[in-house]
């Protein structure tokens, strides 16, 4: 029977929630890396036992953790816990070394972006927000970082190298940090075209490469953001999350700061599909594993009040690719609920009856084993949840 493994990153550690295909009884493992902020944990589609975790701290900086046994044991790639490197194989202890590429040969001399006071400010590494393992190579993995840039490792996380063409895009000086920092938080790898990658940055917008990361272009046409001087500017949009169904890689759904958006031409043109949502502010968005027109969001009251409308936690589902939405509330708190659901904190499994999962800043992780019709908490009292990913295991 199939199993599912839910990988949860929180403000104070990582947790792994495991169940069989019924998804009724759960084993809880953790906290892993207790006391550290775990921005993201994600497994490799190539080898589900290969997990990567972004472990961060205001005191001690960035750590990358890797597991090769499905989360039972962890180590920092290239360090103890792994086979010692061969003599002359190079230094160890660099799995947390994220240095922007400013070399003449491959980097870009561009080193500034827009700061809060309108001046230009140098790029400064702060943390890894999102880890995206390759769809094809177990040792290849991407990292989205703050200040916004995309890094790649091709040795299982031992060393990281920037894909500088993104930061070197000529719109870079106009990127600016949002309230949460200038973070690259979304990485979508095209399942059909290995050279196409979509990424999103707050607050710059969405970008796409068609040449494996050498060159990038902003894909923000159709977005409208009233919080920037030119609401339809090429960059400056606060994109919160992008989701894709593997069968239709040119169709993307976006939860922007305000507005739920859709594109059917790989981001060249977007249109709003907020439709009858009670509020179209929010952070998460995801797509049903088997129904590419079924989309999930969690509406949040506003950018000033980051909690559900009327204290009622409701997921909204569209079965029509947007515009027409239905509230899903069965099993979710319908009074006095004032949590938030952060951008990386929703995921779906790929069992026949699609499971949907999300975590809250109140420490709950909710699961639905029937595509959102019924919900139940897996856990109620974790630290604030930053990210949720799901693995469907044989």
């Amino acid at each position, binding site marked *: 029977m199939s199993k599912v493994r839910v990988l949860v990153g929180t403000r104070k550690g990582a947790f792994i929630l495991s169940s069989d295909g019924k998804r009724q009884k759960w084993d809880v493992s953790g906290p892993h890396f207790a*006391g550290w902020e775990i921005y993201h944990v994600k497994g490799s589609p190539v080898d589900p036992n290969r997990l990567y975790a972004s472990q961060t*701290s*205001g*005191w*001690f900086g*960035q750590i990358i953790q890797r597991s090769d046994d499905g989360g039972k044991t962890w180590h920092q790639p290239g*360090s103890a816990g792994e086979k010692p490197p061969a003599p002359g194989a190079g230094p160890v*202890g660099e799995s*947390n070394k994220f240095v922007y590429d400013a070399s003449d040969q491959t980097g870009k001399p561009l080193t500034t972006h827009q700061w809060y006071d309108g001046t230009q400010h140098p790029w400064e590494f702060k943390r890894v927000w999102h880890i995206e393992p390759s769809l094809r190579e177990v040792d290849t993995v991407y990292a989205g970082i703050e200040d916004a840039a995309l890094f790649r490792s091709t040795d299982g996380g031992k060393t990281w190298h920037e894909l500088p063409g993104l930061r070197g895009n000529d719109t870079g000086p106009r990127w600016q940090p949002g309230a949460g920092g200038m973070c690259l938080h979304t990485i979508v790898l095209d399942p059909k075209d290995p050279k196409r990658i979509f990424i999103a940055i707050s607050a710059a917008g969405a970008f796409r490469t068609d040449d494996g990361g050498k060159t990038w272009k902003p894909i923000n046409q159709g977005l409208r953001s009233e919080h920037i001087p030119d609401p339809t500017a090429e960059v400056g949009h606060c994109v919160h999350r992008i989701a894709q169904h593997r069968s239709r890689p040119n169709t993307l759904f976006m939860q922007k700061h305000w507005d739920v958006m859709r594109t059917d031409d790989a981001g060249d043109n977007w249109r709003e599909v907020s439709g009858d949502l009670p509020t179209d502010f929010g952070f998460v968005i995801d797509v049903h594993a088997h129904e590419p027109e079924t989309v999930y969001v969690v509406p949040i009251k506003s950018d000033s009040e980051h909690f559900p409308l009327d204290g009622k936690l409701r997921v909204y589902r569209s079965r029509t690719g947007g515009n027409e939405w239905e509230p899903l509330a069965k099993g979710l708190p319908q009074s006095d609920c004032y949590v938030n659901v952060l951008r990386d904190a929703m995921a779906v499994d790929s069992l026949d009856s699609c499971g949907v999962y999300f975590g809250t800043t109140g420490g709950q992780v909710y699961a639905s084993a029937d595509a959102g019709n019924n919900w139940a908490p897996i856990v109620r009292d974790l630290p604030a949840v930053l990210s949720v990913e799901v693995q469907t295991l044989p």
Partner: protein
Amino acid sequence: MIRVVLPQHLRTLARVSGEVTIEVHGPATQRSVLDALENSYPVLRGTIRDHVTHERRPFLRFFVCSEDWSHEAPDAPLPKEITSGAEPFLIIGAIAGG
């Protein structure tokens, strides 16, 4: 032999308990102590000092014989109490809530 006391989270990363001891070849300074520490425990690279600039991370402090040496020159000689092992070199995480 120089004794070094690490914050709890760095002890966990380095998979050690209690103090660690390191050998420093040449003059014992904050720089040479940290170099030796990172050579013995490469997982600590980047967690105490920046990987590239080697500047101290902002929320860490270095205490020597009941004095804050965080702003001392990295190549200033450490006192004999440290080099003899009578006193430990303390790496302290700033107190903060949350």
